[in-house]
């Protein structure tokens, strides 16, 4: 049975849904029903606006997920407070010395939690550069990390439980592509063969690409009869960046003649005409490439140190640069990229070694993330306040894996196995994120949870993968009502949410 809504709960979405049901129940002919719905939807649009009925109004503009197989050791990038400050047991599964675990007291952080920590393998690069850069933004956006998440099970899987706690849950990227702002292509999965899953739930799948060429092919210009030069003679020539008419075409001259007749509404149609004729000649692909070249210094670096470096077969810097460029061009809102770091059992390495697995991944991921954040700060987008604010004012980026490995190495003594399972981890960077290192791994290898409302460490508090999923949705700006309808009874970690 449909529950009655209080006036404050009525939205365009549910109003039109229920109006449609009532109109159907009238039993009148299809033509009459259609006419009634025309009037109803028109009025509803006047009242609540013309945005897509399915959109979540509070959703962040841009969402990126970095999916790491196969059981990524998240403390290669983001260690816990115990790794820094506790006396270590010999088997503690950390490959940074205390001196090279750098806290960053980020403005506006959750002071009930610890400061976020960043592993430093090479000073001024990788994770170290990332931490310094985020701190320099004085709280414009935050970073929340943790390795204390309880696992549903310790099995390898490409369908991470933090992204799909049950078989019906849409993965966060799929959810954002469906419920976030609209764009010519809402969601892209960049995957060149890594075994990860973007569970769909009730929403459409993401468009899959495997590299820069296949991603840019999504934005190929539509085949049309005239060349661009010919069309500009007819429809006018426009500045590709500002959309301003630079040279009148035949249509402009005819419209000027028509304007002299003072037909009601012609001024408004003329404005629509100019915008539409600009759009007809806009080369979306050229825009994307221009933005990419801006942030990468024509594809050699720019904001991205190690832009073209590949690990696990994926060029992360290039992928994130393409994502930022597409966001800025207003042609994309959601992006996932899958990386394969393989298994880590034998990666028992000296502390602070930049040339071994933990150090290499720290450098690779840290540099790419720093480049991405710099680009998000540098560029604007029509999707965010119509190009008046940086894209970083409305975004979320997450890193996730199926687990983050055992707090202590397995095998007794100093341990000879960087074990599967253990706990899971989260790392969120975004405009709605309240900074902090939440929960803890103690020097003894103990796991400490945190209070989901305050963020304070709490040994007895269990943070589940389902809670991380729902918190992820909240950090994306999805409403509590929508999240609760998807997963009733699961707590959102409000401590992380600004």
């Amino acid at each position: 049975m449909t529950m009655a809504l209080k006036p404050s709960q009525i939205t365009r979405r549910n109003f039109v849904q229920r109006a449609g049901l009532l109109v159907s129940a009238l039993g009148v002919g299809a033509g009459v029903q259609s006419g009634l719905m025309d009037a109803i939807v028109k009025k509803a649009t006047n009242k609540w606006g013309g945005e897509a009925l399915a959109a979540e109004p509070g959703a962040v503009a841009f969402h990126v997920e970095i999916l790491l197989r196969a059981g990524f050791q998240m403390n290669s990038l983001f260690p816990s407070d115990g790794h820094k400050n506790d006396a270590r047991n010999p088997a503690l599964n950390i490959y940074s010395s205390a001196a090279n675990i750098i806290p960053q007291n980020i403005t506006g952080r959750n002071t009930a939690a610890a400061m976020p920590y960043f592993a430093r393998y090479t000073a001024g690069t990788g994770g170290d550069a990332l931490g310094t850069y985020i701190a320099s933004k004085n709280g414009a956006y935050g970073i929340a990390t943790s390795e204390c998440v309880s696992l549903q099970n310790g099995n390898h899987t490409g369908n991470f439980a933090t992204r799909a706690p049950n078989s019906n849950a849409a993965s966060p990227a799929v959810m954002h592509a469906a419920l976030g702002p609209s764009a010519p292509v809402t969601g892209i999965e960049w995957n060149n063969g890594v075994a990860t899953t973007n569970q769909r739930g009730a929403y459409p799948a993401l468009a899959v690409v495997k590299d820069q060429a296949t991603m840019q092919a999504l934005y190929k210009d539509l085949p049309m009869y005239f060349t661009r030069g010919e069309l500009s003679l007819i429809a006018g020539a426009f500045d590709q960046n500002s959309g301003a008419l630079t040279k009148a075409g035949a249509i402009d001259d005819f419209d000027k003649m028509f304007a002299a007749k003072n037909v009601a509404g012609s001024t408004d149609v003329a404005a629509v005409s100019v915008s539409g004729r600009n759009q007809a000649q806009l080369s979306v692909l050229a825009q994307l490439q221009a933005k990419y070249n801006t942030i990468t210094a024509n594809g050699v670096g720019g904001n991205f140190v190690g832009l073209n470096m590949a690990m696990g077969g994926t060029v992360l810097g290039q992928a994130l640069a393409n994502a930022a460029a597409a966001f800025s061009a207003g042609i994309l809102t959601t992006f996932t990229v899958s990386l394969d770091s393989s298994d880590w059992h034998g990666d028992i390495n000296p502390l602070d070694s930049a040339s071994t697995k933990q150090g290499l991944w720290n450098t690779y991921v840290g540099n790419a993330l720093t480049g991405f954040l710099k680009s998000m700060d540098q560029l604007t987008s029509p999707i965010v306040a119509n190009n008046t604010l940086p894209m970083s004012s409305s975004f979320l980026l997450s890193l996730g894996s199926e687990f983050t490995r055992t707090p202590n190495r397995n095998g007794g003594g100093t341990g000879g196995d960087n074990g599967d399972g253990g706990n899971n981890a989260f790392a969120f960077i975004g405009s709605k994120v309240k900074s902090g290192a939440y929960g803890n791994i103690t020097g003894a290898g103990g796991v400490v949870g945190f209070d989901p409302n305050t963020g304070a460490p709490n040994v007895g508090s269990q943070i589940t993968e389902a809670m991380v999923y729902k918190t992820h949705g909240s950090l994306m700006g999805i409403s509590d009502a929508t999240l609760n309808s998807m997963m009733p009874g699961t707590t959102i970690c409000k401590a992380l949410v600004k």
Partner: protein
Amino acid sequence: MTGMKALKGMAVVASLAALTACGQGYSPSADEHVVAPKGGGDVFNGGSDTSNYNTASYAVLRSTLVDVMGVADQTPNATECPAAAVSAAACPKYQPLNYLANNKGALGEAVYNQADPLSTQAPGPMSSGGFKAWILASSSAAGIMMAQPTPALFPNGINNYDYMYQALLGRLPTEAEVARLNQVEADIATANPSLATSMLAQRQGAAVASSVLGSLEFLMVN
């Protein structure tokens, strides 16, 4: 049965007479319990249905291409329009009608037949996205038209614009408009210095037709 009808009629008359006899006027009014949309605040009381401007409907635009210009979708060139583009109705050069239909929401057509019943689009005037769709569809359709032995809008050759104006705008062109269209043809020739005469004439005719089809007057008077 006739007797029953007469009896019923007598009963109605008697009822009315009784009402009148009681001094109560017959004032029909809506039954309070008729099913109707409830709630929604002032949705049904405020706001106007009128928009700032009106543009030709999707049906008129499509009819212009099909009935006036005699255009039908073509088999696309697979290199220019791969199968994915065709199935996504993203090939206006060869299939302008399909492309136009795929964008009719932006042209102001109400769209209700979505998989998600909440994804309705209210009827209204053409948006800028719709204008883009019309420019690409109509110019491509003009190209298809000009490839026909006798292009529908130019029964008397590409230098005579009278029939085109009467068909699209319901009047003859002014001298200023003739001069401007002549300039369009000259500009197309300048842009294609090496094109064979017959092919050039096709592009010139398409450009002239596109200039009128994309004009405010065409979109507002139809």
